[in-house]
């Protein structure tokens, strides 16, 4: 605590109603439970259907791991004090963890595992107006990047460091909004109404631009209580770190588009031969 540059003065702000250590243990148990539940669901699913892809289980474990890394342990403590650690935490919690977890297609697994009646009810819920709106890329982007603008450009950032409930809510939101956003762009889960590729590309483009603009804005205008040097590092981290994860997102979206348009052409050499024979007949 010799560093004079930390975000807020802990001595003033540690009037937490909940013990930070206890909270972290609870959170750790919760995340462990999330992994265990996924694996149990995979075992149940494997009994009834064909083998659930190992890669998806791996994605789920990695996703939860990165979320855990951002939320608990020594890194989370540092993120509380240093702005660039805070920013790295947000990249992991709001972008990387959701990316892996979306790729693990949890909804498909749940639908496979639940009893038929419940699964039907769930799939009806997924088709509801509310879920359809929530998983629209535009709504996802506003929840995700829009909320970041609010966090870093208002007093919310300062309040977050003084009130533990706000702190928890903000982090919960960062993760959920990141998940909804990623899902609305590249999900292969049975979401009811997947939007056109062009629409998703345009929304993704605008969301990425808003993310880049915000990171330069943070660089130039540090959030409340953040020293300039830390804001500069944090802004750059957000800009370039965002780029790395976004490029994966763009790649996956376009890969899906590329695959989806293959039907108009022949798939393999065999198909091509069949076509030729038919034509010559």
């Amino acid at each position: 605590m010799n560093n004079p540059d930390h975000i807020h003065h802990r001595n003033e702000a540690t009037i937490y109603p909940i013990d930070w250590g206890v909270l972290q243990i609870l959170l750790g148990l919760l995340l462990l439970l999330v992994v265990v539940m996924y694996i149990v669901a995979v075992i149940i699913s494997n009994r009834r259907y064909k083998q659930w892809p190992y890669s998806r289980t791996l994605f789920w474990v990695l996703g939860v791991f990165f979320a855990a890394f951002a939320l608990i342990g020594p890194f989370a403590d540092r993120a509380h004090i240093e702005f660039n650690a805070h920013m790295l935490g947000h990249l992991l919690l709001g972008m990387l963890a959701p990316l892996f977890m979306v790729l693990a297609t949890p909804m498909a697994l749940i639908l496979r595992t639940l009893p038929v009646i419940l699964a039907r009810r769930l799939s009806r819920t997924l088709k509801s107006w509310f879920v359809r709106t929530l998983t629209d890329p535009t709504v996802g982007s506003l929840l995700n990047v829009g909320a970041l603008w609010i966090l870093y450009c208002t007093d919310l950032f300062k309040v977050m460091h003084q009130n533990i409930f706000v702190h928890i809510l903000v982090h919960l939101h960062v993760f959920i909004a990141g998940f909804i956003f990623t899902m609305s762009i590249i999900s292969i889960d049975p979401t009811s109404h997947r939007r056109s590729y062009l629409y998703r590309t345009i929304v993704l483009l605008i969301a990425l631009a808003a993310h880049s603009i915000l990171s330069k804005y943070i660089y130039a205008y540090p959030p409340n209580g953040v020293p300039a040097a830390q804001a500069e590092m944090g802004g750059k981290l957000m800009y370039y770190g965002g780029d790395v994860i976004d490029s994966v997102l763009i790649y996956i979206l376009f890969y899906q588009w590329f695959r989806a348009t293959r039907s108009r052409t022949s798939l393999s050499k065999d198909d091509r031969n069949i076509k030729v024979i038919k034509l010559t007949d």
Partner: protein
Amino acid sequence: MTVKMAKSQSDPKYENYSAYSSRNLWSGFLFGLGLVSFLDEVVFHQLLHWHHFYDKSMSDIGLISDGLFHAFSWVATIGSLFMFADLQRLSALWLTRWWGGVLLGAGAFQLYDGIIQHKLMRIHQIRYNVDILPYDLTWNISSVIIIAVGIMIIFRTRLKREPSEAITHE
């Protein structure tokens, strides 16, 4: 060139070329734009440290333009390569025309960056603490040359008549 053209007309690929002529051009254009933006980032920001991440004299519109082009260049680079793969899958890849597009896109973005972003919006200068004029001239003249070469290639790969365009199979 006329010999080449006659040759390509007898080529079965000719039909594909004419049907996907503009897509070849677009794929190249977007790739050129993305490529220049990427090189700008790697060479001038990261290796030479000439460009600054943020310049205090940057206008608000400059900040927005910078962010939009930054995002667009990522999407364009990856998207154009998938378009490239798609053209290849359709046996419609026309490399000469594609390269024409690359040069046009590269030059156009460099000129936009050099005139609008550097000079009008002042997002950052090419280099700091030097006489900037020779740098600006080199930057912008080279972009004009790249554009000119690109346009020339595009012009020369234009198909005079497009006999199959009316009966594409899509």
